[in-house]
């Protein structure tokens, strides 16, 4: 029982990293990014490519994934910023359809581009054996080193986002454009630049999520939609507008799936879906709502 809970929490922390970017983008500009999962998969493949690039110049080692991640983060920020600035900003508005269609189109483009470049084979990022190392816990439990790292990264990412939103100038600006972009612009803020900035930050989180996902398991080009559904479920279960809510929702989703997998391997994901739908019916505002405006 404890073991299922522990495994579930560790799985959930991966989902938390999937979901934070989604939560951020929706929170700031009410944009639903249906390509979230595909961007994560794209980040994994960028990591795979980065690893083979490092290996080709003789720099493969235990620290290589870290180096790749650090290199990938600024690239991700720039890509996210540019994407929002030049493509997605044009789709924002009262009508959700344009942004949905454009991100859905991006999702199809990314999937097929990766299929073309990397084939349908599942790939992973080589961790030089770290993905199978584990620490012994009291009570006969063992916890993997990599899942523990993911958990710590998820906690740090959630805490930093929450801090960014509540205690910094940038966060205050994000909240202002989220509440009312027109009034915020009258006060001298540039909503379109702030949107671009938010998507840039979301892409840094996506890059982290993608590389860690590639280190812990195998990823194939068609995985994106399912990752999007997990991210979305975590956001809704947790309650929109709160990053710790997203964190809690993700952990709950992870534990639920883990229980499901233990009951019947064919039902793990399905049980997660069912709990999500049950939350929608019983508590549509999510477990920890803090929606502004």
């Amino acid at each position, binding site marked *: 029982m404890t073991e299922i809970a522990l495994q579930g929490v560790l799985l959930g922390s991966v989902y938390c990293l999937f979901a934070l970017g989604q939560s951020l983008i*929706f929170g700031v500009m*009410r*944009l*639903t990014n*249906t390509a979230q999962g595909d961007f994560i998969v794209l980040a994994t493949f960028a990591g795979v490519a980065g690893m083979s690039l490092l290996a080709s110049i003789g720099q493969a080692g235990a620290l290589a994934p870290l180096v790749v991640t650090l290199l990938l983060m600024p690239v991700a920020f720039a890509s996210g910023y540019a994407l929002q600035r030049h*493509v997605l900003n*044009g*789709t924002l508005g009262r009508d*959700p*359809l*344009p*942004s*949905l*269609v*454009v991100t*859905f*189109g*991006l*999702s*199809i*483009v990314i*999937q*097929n*581009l990766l*299929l*073309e470049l990397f084939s349908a084979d599942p790939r992973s990022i080589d961790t030089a054996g770290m993905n199978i190392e584990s620490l012994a816990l009291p009570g006969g439990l063992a916890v993997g080193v990599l899942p523990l790292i993911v958990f710590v990264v998820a906690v740090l990412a959630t805490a930093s986002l929450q801090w960014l939103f509540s205690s910094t100038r940038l966060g205050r600006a994000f909240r202002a454009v989220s509440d009312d972009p027109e009034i915020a612009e009258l006060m001298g803020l540039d909503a379109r630049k702030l949107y671009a900035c938010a998507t840039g930050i979301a892409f840094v989180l996506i890059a982290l999520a993608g590389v860690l996902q590639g280190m812990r398991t195998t990823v194939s080009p068609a995985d994106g*939609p*399912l990752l*999007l*559904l997990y991210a*979305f*479920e975590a956001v*809704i279960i947790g309650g929109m507008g709160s990053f710790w809510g997203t964190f809690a929702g993700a952990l709950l989703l992870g534990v639920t799936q883990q229980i499901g997998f233990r009951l*019947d391997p*064919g*039902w793990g*994901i*399905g049980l997660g*879906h*069912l709990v*999500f*739908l049950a939350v*929608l*019916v019983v508590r*549509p505002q999510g477990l920890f709502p803090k929606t502004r405006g």
Partner: protein
Amino acid sequence: MASTTVKPVEVIRSSRHGGVASAVGIALVAIALTLPYWAPEADRSAWMREFVEMACYFIFAMMWNLMAGYGGMVSIGQQAFFGCGGYAMLILGNFAGINPFVAVPLAAAAAAVIALPISFVAFRLRGGYFAIGTWVIADTFRIVVANLSAVGGGSGTSLTALRGISKATREQTTFWMAVAAVVATVLLVHLFLRSRRGLALLAIRDSEVAAESQGIDVRGTKLAVYLVAAFGCGLAGALYFVGNLRISPDAAFSVNWTAFAIFMVVIGGLGRIEGPIVGVLIFWVLDRAFSSYGTGYLIGLGLLAIVGTIHFKQGLWGWAQARLGATLFTTQRTLRLETDPARR
């Protein structure tokens, strides 16, 4: 002070092109219906199959257009009802002993019935979250069906109920049903949009709050659209798998159905009946010409949808309409003042 007299107004509900469109439409239907008699022997079967496939895409796209373009509900989960229609038809045929062709409309009705409880969950979400929420629902359907061993689980099963019927009879019946379904879909959507309920729907699309304040039952109207769309998607699914003879959860509940529908509607023109018609024709041409390129073809479709959404918001038909002023299916009401002869 000038006296304010109310000028008599005339409500125009038809267009010059409407009559021509009806005549062309009837001619096209006649050509289609007689296809089994004039098509060359060698191509007949392939042509009919292709028509059935495109008819299913078209009906699905019409339903997506009805929801997104008129009802303001953008769904990425309509494949849930496509799959339900397919599986309901198969279960009625294989297990209840009903003739699969008779089972097709029954299966569509079953999809609408299933949609009623589903709507309570789906309607908790709005906007972009409605879109992904419906996708989760469709994926739940896929998982549930993949765990039902009676219908073959994840690997699917075959429609054995059609075993005794000859290939020619089967293909012709499926084909005629597809023609009938296409005609019925276009006519019913057209008539619905011209009715009071349809006018209410247009009002809701333009502003939910304003519509509600005018006494329109917003929730009821949206629910009606959702159920009709489920019926249509179920019909498309049942028809597709009667033609295909083999069904699997991954094929029946694939998000690609919705992806292609979005492409057709966005390229053809959202919120107009001509949109999906133009869209399916373009899709058919592109599919014939480029589908052998696989990934490159899909990348192209995705890019076209993105560019279309950003730069041609009205779609191809909207673009043509702005230049030619042609409307084939008049669903709007134009007010003409008696003293204003210019507007004709």
